[in-house]
């Protein structure tokens, strides 16, 4: 009250002085210290009354009899009164004041005031205690009855135990039939309920037709995959969790309670002990507990145990795609998971497991839900599998490093990629799993660190990949193989189904992947070296021979091929098909490393040693790829990656280097093309795009990577394992290459290592392109592609090479490029040599410089990949190339000196930009190419085709066949490209291109067509992603949508074609 009065007084005074500032100031003063009030202000009661009538109308009679009417505003200490909006009341009763009669405010001295009449005032208006009990009760509008609390008498029935009886009553209300019956009897309501739900669904008609069985098997497989997924288990666990909300979240754990209520209620703590309640316990328990819980009794130890099997499976299930998504979400968790997985895998696991365990706690915390769920739900391997996917995504990337990582990146980017990644994981799972697991284990720590360090999962993945190949293969292969294989098989099937919807391709892939993994695990080291050697030795040969074999063999023989690959590098490699290749791809990378290194084992050691550098580089590269995928790559990431990749890869693992090389090669090619020829630039650009897609589009990368990886692997390893990669890659590329290869590749990349993935991805792309181009061009070119593969390998060995190539291109791009078609062949061979031997780099550089062929091959490969899918795609690529080339050109200068950096950067960065540019320029470029360099374009395509051939020598034959037709197709595509470019513009180009080509190829050779289609799909996906990314960057959402739409159309068409083939 006092304060109020003082405030009012101050306010009044201030009003008089018209000083707001004074009011606040005085209020502060008064509030701070009680001031002796003077006059009326000292009369609390008067102040209260006058204050409570503030804001009311009043009539004020002055001494002379005049009456003023106004709103009482305030008063002063001498009881001076202030009226607002006051006017002199006129004698006429009914008339109100006019506007001009009203005075803003009038101050009346108390000595002049006779009477102030406030009419109809609510003295309680301003009372603050509106919400006191008395105030509220006083205002109650109606009757207010006190609620009398009545004691509850449950009667004797509710004595102790009655409530429990309710708990134990398991009956869940009325039986539906009872309800129907009751309603019918009581109310005459007859239910129309039909248990068959015929109104909502149609019963499944079973028959023994092959088609039905096929579908059924696939459905079962899918169901298995789905049910094995951690997400599924987690959700099911949620849905089927019988624990009440209270139990789950609020109940106090009663350990002793159970004694009496064992049957009715199981406290969380006890549940944990019970085997079947593992997941429940997990839920009940905090994330950490859950993680621990996975292992039934021993929470932490148990989890590890579970993890071991689960980890492997996880890796295998890898749900690489799944992994990737999850991993992306929670890198650390994934890492942890991976660590766990690694621990599970084997002896190595043990050691790793220790580390894993250490890490696990963190993971659990970080990703309690994911990890816990999977582990808890599955309780066993299954649970682990679910986890594995998630974990894999994180650590899984490491496990299925190349594949998972790429996938992860891709997955995040696109759902499609996810699917692809999934397939890739499955495919990759065999080798990747084995290798990946060990790698993961060993590298888990690294990976985790790297992951943590590296923003993009890709980098991490890359590292795992690289490391995994060397480490994983040796260590994990033996132990993990069985479980992993199963899981892998499942995963593969999934991946195949998802990605390859085409039944035939997926199956082969699965088989291959399955078979390969074990082999790879055991054989990987050896095989890789062999493959590399073979590749190196017979890159050209492989490319040629493989080309024919690849298409058919790749698909059908893929499994055998995968194994064979190990034994017989080139042939088997080709046979390996996409998956094998993928695996091999990593292997190849490793092999390539090995090859680079005298002994495979020594290589492994070296690899391990190098792994660190490589992983870093890989990480970087991966990071770059990831980042680049979107916009960053083109701009920032490319340079860094390039530098890092090139350097690290060479130093670290051959494969990484190889991978890097490919990108560089790409760059170089792109670079060269831009510089060399406008047209060539286009093709390079296209190639670049593929690379970009690979490296940049993480999501795509997985898929693209898979194919590319193989090619890449072949190429990279090509130098060392050129033969194998080329052969293997060739076939896969050719036959399965499209979808399968891509899938496989994606898988393999993931599995292998992030590095391989990235690099491989490009390679694959390039390879795929090459393959396609080879198909178009012919065997000779095919040969060149292999060389390219080798070059890529070489380049991989030394990123510099790519740079060199770039520089070279810059120097003598144009002339050489043209020659490239023919020269490309030569360059490619040369490249292989370089790859084989470091010196080769110089040669390669020379080659590259001399003939864009080398670069162009790479680029072409990519382009071709797209192109392979469709000549139009190639054209689109070419179109894209020009922009890319521009990009590259810009980058190119740096690449020469900076080669590694530039290459990676350029690929990634340039790719995005290139893609964008490509899209933008695609029409123009194509046109330009067509008119000016029609021959060149064709050549480029041919080269690309050649490149593919190189990559997939085995497949080449079919490819070649295709090529022959494709050649026609390519040319047509060129025209088409010209046409397509405009509509499709950038991204779509690939899809269109691929599709057109794929279709064309399809027409000619079934296998090839299928493979192409498949490859095309992946590529198209990649391209789409890349495109989408670039487009988004360009703010051409409409284009993106358009591209996506086209992609859908293409994919659908491809599927249809595949289906028809199937």
């Amino acid at each position: 009250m006092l304060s109020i009065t003082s405030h009012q007084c101050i306010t009044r005074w201030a009003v008089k002085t018209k000083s707001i500032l004074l009011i606040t100031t005085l209020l502060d003063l008064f509030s701070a210290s009680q001031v002796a009030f003077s006059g009326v202000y000292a009369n609390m009661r008067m102040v209260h009354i006058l204050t409570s009538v503030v804001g009311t109308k009043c009539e004020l009679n002055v001494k002379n009899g005049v009456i003023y009417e106004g709103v009482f505003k305030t008063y002063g200490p001498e009881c001076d009164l202030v009226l607002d909006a006051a006017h002199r009341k006129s004698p006429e009763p009914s008339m109100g004041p006019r506007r001009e009669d009203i005075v803003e405010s009038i101050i009346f001295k108390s000595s002049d005031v006779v009477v102030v009449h406030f009419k109809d005032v609510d003295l309680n208006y301003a009372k603050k205690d509106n919400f006191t009990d008395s105030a509220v009760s006083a205002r109650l509008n109606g009757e207010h009855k006190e609620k009398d609390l009545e004691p509850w008498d449950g009667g004797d029935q509710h004595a102790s135990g009655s409530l429990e009886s309710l708990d134990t009553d398991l009956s869940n209300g009325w039986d539906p039939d009872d309800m129907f019956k009751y309603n019918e009897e009581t109310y005459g309501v007859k239910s129309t309920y039909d248990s068959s739900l015929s109104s909502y669904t149609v019963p499944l008609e079973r028959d023994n037709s092959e088609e039905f069985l096929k579908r059924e098997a696939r459905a079962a497989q899918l169901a298995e995959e789905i049910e094995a997924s951690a997400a599924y288990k987690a959700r099911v666990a949620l849905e089927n969790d019988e624990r009440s909300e209270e139990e789950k979240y609020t109940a106090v754990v009663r350990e002793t309670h159970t004694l009496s209520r064992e049957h009715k209620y199981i406290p969380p703590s006890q549940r944990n002990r019970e085997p079947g309640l593992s997941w429940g316990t997990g839920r009940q328990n905090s994330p950490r507990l859950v993680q621990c819980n996975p292992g039934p009794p021993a929470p932490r130890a148990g989890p590890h145990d579970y993890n071991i099997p689960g980890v492997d499976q996880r890796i295998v299930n890898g749900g690489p795609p799944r992994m990737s998504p999850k991993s992306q979400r929670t890198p650390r968790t994934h890492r942890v998971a991976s660590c766990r997985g690694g621990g599970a895998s084997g002896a190595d696991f043990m050691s790793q497991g220790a580390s894993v365990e250490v890490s696990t706690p963190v993971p659990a915390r970080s990703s309690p839900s994911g990890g816990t769920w999977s582990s808890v739900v599955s309780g066993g391997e299954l649970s682990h599998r679910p986890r594995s996917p998630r974990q894999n995504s994180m650590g899984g990337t490491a496990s299925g490093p190349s594949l998972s990582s790429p996938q992860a990146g891709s997955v995040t980017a696109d759902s499609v990629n996810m699917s692809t990644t999934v397939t890739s994981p499955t495919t990759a799972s065999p080798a990747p799993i084995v290798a990946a697991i060990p790698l993961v284990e060993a590298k888990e720590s690294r990976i985790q660190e790297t992951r943590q360090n590296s923003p993009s999962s890709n980098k991490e993945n890359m590292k795992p990949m690289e490391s995994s190949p060397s480490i994983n293969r040796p260590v994990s292969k033996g132990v993990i193989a069985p479980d992993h294989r199963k899981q892998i098989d499942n995963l593969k099937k999934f991946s195949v189904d998802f990605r390859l919807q085409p039944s035939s391709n997926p199956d082969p892939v699965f088989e291959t992947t399955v078979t390969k993994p074990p082999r790879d695990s055991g054989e990987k080291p050896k095989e890789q070296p062999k493959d590399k050697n073979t590749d190196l030795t017979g890159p050209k040969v492989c490319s040629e021979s493989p080309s024919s074999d690849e298409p058919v063999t790749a698909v059908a023989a893929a499994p055998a091929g995968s194994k064979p690959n190990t034994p017989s590098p080139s042939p088997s490699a080709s046979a390996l098909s996409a998956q094998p290749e993928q695996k091999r791809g990593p292997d190849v990378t490793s092999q390539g490393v090995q090859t680079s290194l005298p002994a495979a084992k020594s290589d492994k050691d070296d690899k391990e040693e190098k792994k660190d550098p490589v992983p870093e580089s890989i990480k970087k590269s991966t990071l770059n790829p990831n980042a680049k995928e979107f916009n960053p790559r083109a701009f920032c990431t490319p340079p860094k990656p390039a530098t890092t990749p090139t350097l690290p890869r060479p130093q670290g693992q051959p494969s990484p280097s190889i991978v890097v090389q490919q990108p560089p090669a790409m760059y170089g090619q792109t670079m060269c093309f831009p510089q060399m020829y406008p047209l060539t630039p286009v093709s390079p650009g296209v190639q670049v795009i593929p690379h970009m897609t690979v490296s940049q589009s993480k999501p795509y990368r997985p898929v693209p990577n898979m194919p590319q990886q193989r090619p890449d692997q072949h190429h990279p390893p090509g130098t060392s394992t050129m033969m194998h990669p080329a052969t293997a890659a060739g076939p896969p590329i050719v036959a399965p290459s499209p979808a399968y290869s891509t899938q496989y590749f994606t898988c393999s990349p993931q599995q292998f290592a992030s590095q391989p993935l990235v690099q491989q991805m490009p390679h694959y792309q390039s390879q795929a392109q090459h393959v396609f181009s080879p198909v178009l061009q012919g065997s000779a070119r095919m040969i060149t592609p292999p060389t390219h593969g080798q070059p890529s390998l070489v380049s991989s060995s030394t990123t510099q090479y790519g740079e060199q190539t770039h520089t070279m291109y810059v120097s003598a791009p144009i002339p050489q490029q043209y020659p490239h078609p023919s020269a490309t062949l030569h360059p490619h061979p040369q490249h292989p040599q370089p790859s084989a031997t470091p010196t080769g780099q110089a040669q390669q550089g020379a080659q590259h410089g001399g003939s864009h062929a080398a670069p162009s091959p790479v680029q072409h490969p990519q382009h071709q990949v797209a192109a392979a899918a469709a000549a139009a795609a190639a054209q689109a690529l070419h179109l894209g190339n020009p922009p890319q080339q521009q990009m590259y050109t810009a980058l190119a200068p740096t690449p020469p000196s900076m080669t590694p950096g530039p290459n990676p950067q350029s690929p990634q960065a340039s790719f995005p930009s290139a893609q964008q540019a490509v899209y933008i320029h695609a029409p123009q470029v194509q046109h330009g190419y067509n008119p000016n360099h029609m021959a060149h374009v064709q050549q480029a395509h041919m080269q690309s085709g050649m490149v593919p051939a190189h990559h997939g020598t085995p497949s080449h034959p079919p490819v070649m066949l295709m090529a022959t037709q494709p050649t026609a197709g390519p040319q047509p595509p060129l025209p088409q490209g010209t046409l397509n470019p405009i509509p499709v513009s950038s991204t779509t180009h690939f899809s269109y291109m691929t599709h057109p080509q794929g279709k064309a190829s399809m027409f000619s050779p079934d296998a090839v067509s299928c493979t192409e289609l498949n490859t095309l799909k992946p590529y198209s996906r990649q391209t789409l992603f890349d495109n989408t990314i670039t487009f988004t960057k360009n703010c051409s959402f409409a284009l993106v949508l358009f591209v996506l739409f086209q992609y859908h159309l293409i994919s659908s068409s491809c599927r249809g074609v595949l289906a028809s083939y199937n």
Partner: protein
Amino acid sequence: MATPGPGEYFSIGSHVSCLTCLGQRLQGEVIAFDYQTKMLTLKCTPSSGKPNLSDVVLVNLAYVSDVDVITDCTGTPPPLASLNFNKLTNRARAEKEDKLSQAYAISAGVSPEGQQLFQTIHKTIKECKWQEKNIVVMDDVVITPPYRVDNCRGKEGSALGHVRKIVEKHLRDLESQKSVQRAQQTQKDSALSA
């Protein structure tokens, strides 16, 4: 507070009657008195007759005669409740605005009936304004003099119907008020005359 002399002090709660120099007879309960300023505050019966309201009269005893203490209250005055000053301030502002708005209408030559109607509508619908002599409600309904229900025009709809209801009720209330006032006036007149 200086101690008041005999006849100069009014205890809170006492009932007092006095005659102003202007010949106005006042009677009410003392709710506040300031000796120094000779200001006396009385709570009188409400002029509107509403039970929860009351008239407050501030009288300067310097201009008053015939002060009679009808009933003296020796009890302790009731405690003073704290006041929500913001509420009072807002009321003052609103009253001022209303008066100014009303004055605008009057200056525009609007009849008292129209002004009253405007005030009534304004209580329900804030979105109303004067347009010359017409009351525009929600930019939709226009009420023209003499402000009868039939004078409400606008798009047929809920708004028009709603405004018509308000006008209808206002007129009804006006009639009843007038009757009450008449009765009171007659009573007062009779009382005065008596």
